[in-house]
């Protein structure tokens, strides 16, 4: 068997029930060898459960998990060629850093000198060799994480499983460690499966993003695919950066379709080939919306909505303008370029109209 495919993870029709609760509902997924895969979703969507089933800390109720082409049912976590990094790191408080890292070797009865040598080797790799004799309580969060990483990597796994590894860190550290993780993965070349609920993190790190909701996979693809071409309104809303509209086409006149949204407003759009009576979900990217002052009661806009400024948030390179749509139809968020905003800055309460072009209308499947 070629070594290249040793880190392939295949999830085949897997379901997991905890008593009456369905945690995972018939999921199938293939994670290519050597890729960085992020499982993302809200709390309770099942992403950690999947991770634990790959690791061997849970068994599937139905379906199979294959690692490197080999079915791993019934195998102990240490026999699967995987290593897991817990969210809490779970460092052994009674052992030094070096002893923590070489623990798995001690379980395999490797000699003391050899253990020390290999521990120092891997600690050097994560830049923790100078703290080898400390105990976990003496380390900062970022340092603890690196020790946990070293401990996982020393077992020479084919797949590294990370359960929200960056959640416990402060903002600065999170960004630093993110970079380090990416570099590490590229360096070592094994498959990383990383569970997170932070969208920018997934976008930054992953070759493959899997968006999950309630035990099912909503969409799986590259970061650009997920962000730029979400297939469902759930993915669009969850990943952020979009305004989502759901509605029904009322009438089509001269290529302009009037859509009555669930919120009760009517939006006219061009450039779409829909028929009256059809249900339609579509979304517009926040940074593709232009906001301009309106003179109050104007004519209805095409490819746009009117309303009143609800909130303004300065974000340095752009300004987040939240608009209350007319007729109490909800909020629209536009990320306006800083220069554009300050050309004619609007204030909360000003009547405005928001516009987009027809090519920026993204149709969602459901």
């Amino acid at each position, binding site marked *: 068997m070629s070594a290249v495919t040793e880190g392939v993870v295949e999830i085949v029709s897997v379901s997991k029930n905890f008593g009456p609760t369905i945690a995972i509902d018939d999921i199938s997924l293939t994670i290519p060898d050597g890729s960085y895969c992020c499982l993302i979703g809200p709390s309770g969507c099942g992403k950690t459960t999947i991770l634990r089933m790959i690791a061997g800390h849970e068994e599937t109720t139905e379906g199979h998990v294959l690692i490197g082409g080999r079915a791993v049912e019934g195998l102990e976590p*240490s026999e699967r060629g995987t290593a897991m990094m817990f969210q809490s790191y779970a460092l052994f408080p*009674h052992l030094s850093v070096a002893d923590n890292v070489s623990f798995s070797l001690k*379980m*395999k009865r490797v000699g003391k000198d050899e253990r020390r040598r290999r521990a120092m080797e891997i600690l050097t790799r994560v830049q923790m060799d*100078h703290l080898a*004799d400390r105990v976990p309580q003496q*380390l900062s969060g970022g*340092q603890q994480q690196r020790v946990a990483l070293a401990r996982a990597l020393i077992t020479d796994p084919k797949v590294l499983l990370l359960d929200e590894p960056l959640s416990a860190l402060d903002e*600065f550290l999170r960004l630093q460690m993110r970079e*380090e993780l990416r570099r590490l993965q590229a360096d070592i070349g094994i498959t990383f499966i990383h569970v997170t609920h932070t969208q920018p993190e997934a976008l930054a790190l992953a070759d493959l993003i899997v968006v999950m909701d309630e035990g099912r996979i909503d969409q799986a693809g590259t970061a650009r695919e997920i962000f730029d071409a979400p297939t469902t309104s759930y993915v669009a809303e969850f990943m952020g950066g979009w305004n989502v509209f759901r509605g029904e086409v009322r009438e089509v006149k001269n290529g302009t379709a009037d859509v009555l949204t669930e919120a009760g407003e009517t939006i006219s759009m061009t450039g779409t080939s829909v028929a009256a009576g059809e249900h339609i979900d579509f979304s517009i990217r926040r940074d593709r919306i232009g906001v301009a002052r309106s003179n109050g009661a104007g004519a209805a806009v095409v490819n746009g909505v009117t309303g009143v400024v609800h909130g303004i948030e300065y974000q340095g390179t752009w300004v987040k303008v939240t608009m209350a749509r007319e007729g109490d139809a909800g909020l629209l968020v536009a990320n306006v370029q800083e220069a554009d905003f300050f050309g004619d800055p609007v204030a909360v309460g000003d009547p405005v109209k928001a516009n987009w072009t027809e090519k920026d209308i993204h149709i969602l499947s459901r």
Partner: protein
Amino acid sequence: MSDSLGVLLVIVGIVAVGLYQLVRSQQAQGAGRAGSMKVEVRRTRGFYVRTGVYVVFLVFLYLPILVIGILSFQGPTGGLTFPMEGWSFHWFREVFDPTYIGDFRMPWVRSVILALIVMVITTIVSFLAGLAYRRGFRFSGLIFYLVVASLIAPPFLVSMGIGIGFAKLGLLTSWWTGTLGAHLTWTLPFGVLIMLAIFSRLDRSIEEMARDQGATAWQSMRHVVLPIVFPGMIAVALFGFTLSYDEFPRSSLVTGDGNTLPVEMVAVTGTAARPSLYAVGTMTTVFSLVVIFAGFAAVYIISRRRAGALTVAGSVPEGERYGKALRGAPEQPAE
């Protein structure tokens, strides 16, 4: 006169210590920390009342022990109370070589051995109970209430119950049967409660991680769980020993022929008491203190060793700075 003077000196001593602490803390407050705002502490009247109560409490607690301690150095012709007829080690010698009735040597040996047995059993059973509760089992709630009930049950009744029970079974109670059981009804609740608390603080993911690292159940127990709960087990052992060593009411009706030390001391008190009783009291108090001190020292040494205090200690910020230097200037969060 030396009698009342002696007692007076003790009281004065305690009060003096209390006042000294008071003054010192006031000074520390007044001096303030360098460079910080001066914090003005207004001592309310309530504070002095509370301090007064505390001093009285200390006196009440320790005065009897100190008085007994003083009286144990009673002269050879002296009696059980003041005045002191000279000072001597006569009564200490009497304990080891008794000329009167009231031989405390065997009872002391029994108490020590019994306490050791109780200590071992309590520690092992409490540890196992902690594991069992961690896992969860049927009727665990009921058993927990029974364990707590054992603490609340009046000890004399427990003793009587065991005594009657043995009699009905046609068995003779002795210090290593009935008394052992009676002591365990007292020490096991303490031990189990302590181990429950200790185990509840032990993160489950630690054991899972051990398994992830390839440890078998036994390896996980030996290399991970045991070392982590070990200080707690020393605490349980300490409780087991001292609770058994000092135990009276539960033992009173079940020691049979051979009394434990506390039972013997009480038995002697009504009839043949001599200052040798005080000498035994003093020695046994010192003995208990030594045991407790040894227990704490063991825990202290273990935790210091684990905290890495015996290795070269640097400061955490230093380590972080080193890491930052390697990676270059920190990035600004720009989301």
